[in-house]
């Protein structure tokens, strides 16, 4: 199971080896993966100050740099639905622009501030859809206690890798709560993206019964899928 997740992500991001988070002792804490530098930090600070002064190029540069990891590795894995995820990203950036002048430099950079806005919007969206589950409760709890893992000026691809590792760990932990059959159904259909017929054959059931197993597996996964 874990190897299949790693394989999937490694295939997607061949340039960035995925650190298996169940072996932290071997690879070190995830936060150590982020390369920081005073120059990069100073550059980010200068961009923020310029953007606060009304420099649109600086604003664009700042948002473009940080939006990709935010969207790909924070918003999408927590929303799933692309249309809703795009709305959340748009609202996040809109709110950030609106409140830009309230941002005060504390040394950790712009990303944690942006991420916090996004997490609040994700929670609000879950509430508005009246689908509050343990997952949303967990998400809210984690949003409150989350400490910024990134340093100012961190490369966006490294931020994305770290965020993706968090998303994968969430998925792994949720998958571990499933029975073997349910987990197999999710792996075959969603992680390996195999056709339903093949999945059904692999599990030795009809396609109709496979659909039911997958439906039950996802309903169980929904309860266990905490968000951090």
């Amino acid at each position, binding site marked *: 199971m874990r190897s299949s*997740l790693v394989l*999937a*992500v490694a295939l*997607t991001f061949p340039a960035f080896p995925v650190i298996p988070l169940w072996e932290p002792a071997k690879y070190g804490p995830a936060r150590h993966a982020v390369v920081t530098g005073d120059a990069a930090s100073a550059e980010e600070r200068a961009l923020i100050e310029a953007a606060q002064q*009304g420099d*649109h190029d600086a*604003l*664009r540069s700042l*948002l*473009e740099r940080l*939006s*990709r990891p935010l*969207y*790909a*590795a924070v918003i*999408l*894995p*927590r*929303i*799933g*639905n*692309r249309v809703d*995820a*795009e709305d959340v*990203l*748009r609202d996040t*950036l*809109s709110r950030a*622009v*609106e409140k*830009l002048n309230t941002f005060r430099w504390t040394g950790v950079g712009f990303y944690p501030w942006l991420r916090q806005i996004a997490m609040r919007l994700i929670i609000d969206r879950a509430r508005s*859809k009246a*689908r509050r589950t343990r997952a949303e409760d967990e998400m809210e709890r984690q949003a409150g206690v989350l400490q910024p893992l990134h340093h100012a000026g961190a490369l966006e691809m490294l931020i994305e890798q770290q965020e*993706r590792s968090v*998303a*994968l760990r*969430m*998925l792994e932990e949720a998958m571990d709560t499933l029975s073997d059959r349910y987990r197999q159904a*999710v792996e075959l*259909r*969603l*992680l390996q*993206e195999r056709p339903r017929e093949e999945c059904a*054959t692999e599990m*030795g*059931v*009809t*396609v*109709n*019964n496979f*659909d*039911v197993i*997958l*439906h*039950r597996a*996802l*309903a169980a*996964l*929904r309860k266990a*899928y905490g968000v951090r």
Partner: protein
Amino acid sequence: MSQPPDDWNPEDGPPPTADEREDARTLADALVSSAHTRALDPDVEAVRDVALRVRETAHPDPDHVRGAVHTAVDDAVRQAGQRKWRTRWTLVAVSAAAATALGVGGAQYAWRGDVTVHRPSISRPGSDAFDQPVGTNPGSDPIARLTDTRMRSYRDVFLRGGRRAP
């Protein structure tokens, strides 16, 4: 390839009801990209979103991410531009309104300085009316003379359109 019989395996839990089978089929259809836009029952939609979360976590689409980010950043920068102009125009409008108010107030003050109508006093020096000897003609009646004096005073003021002569 022969399909296994449509018997339910008890290891997979209790046998599904007809409704559950229907939901499962709807979900299976919804997981096909072309069916994403279909309106779904909220419960099925919630489960579908979990499936999409798994998929987006494991297999993000770089093209989609790039497009979504590009659009959102464009919107945000445009919004910042509009805010800037709005702020600037608000400042201009407030300044113009303040200048107009000051100008109008100043002009009124200056104009009133020349034409201010002071209400004439209705009191008259006693000597003007009562120190005269009382005659036999109506014009010598002190009350009539007092009234005439007041009316003359008012008339003078209004005909001149200005302050009462000292």
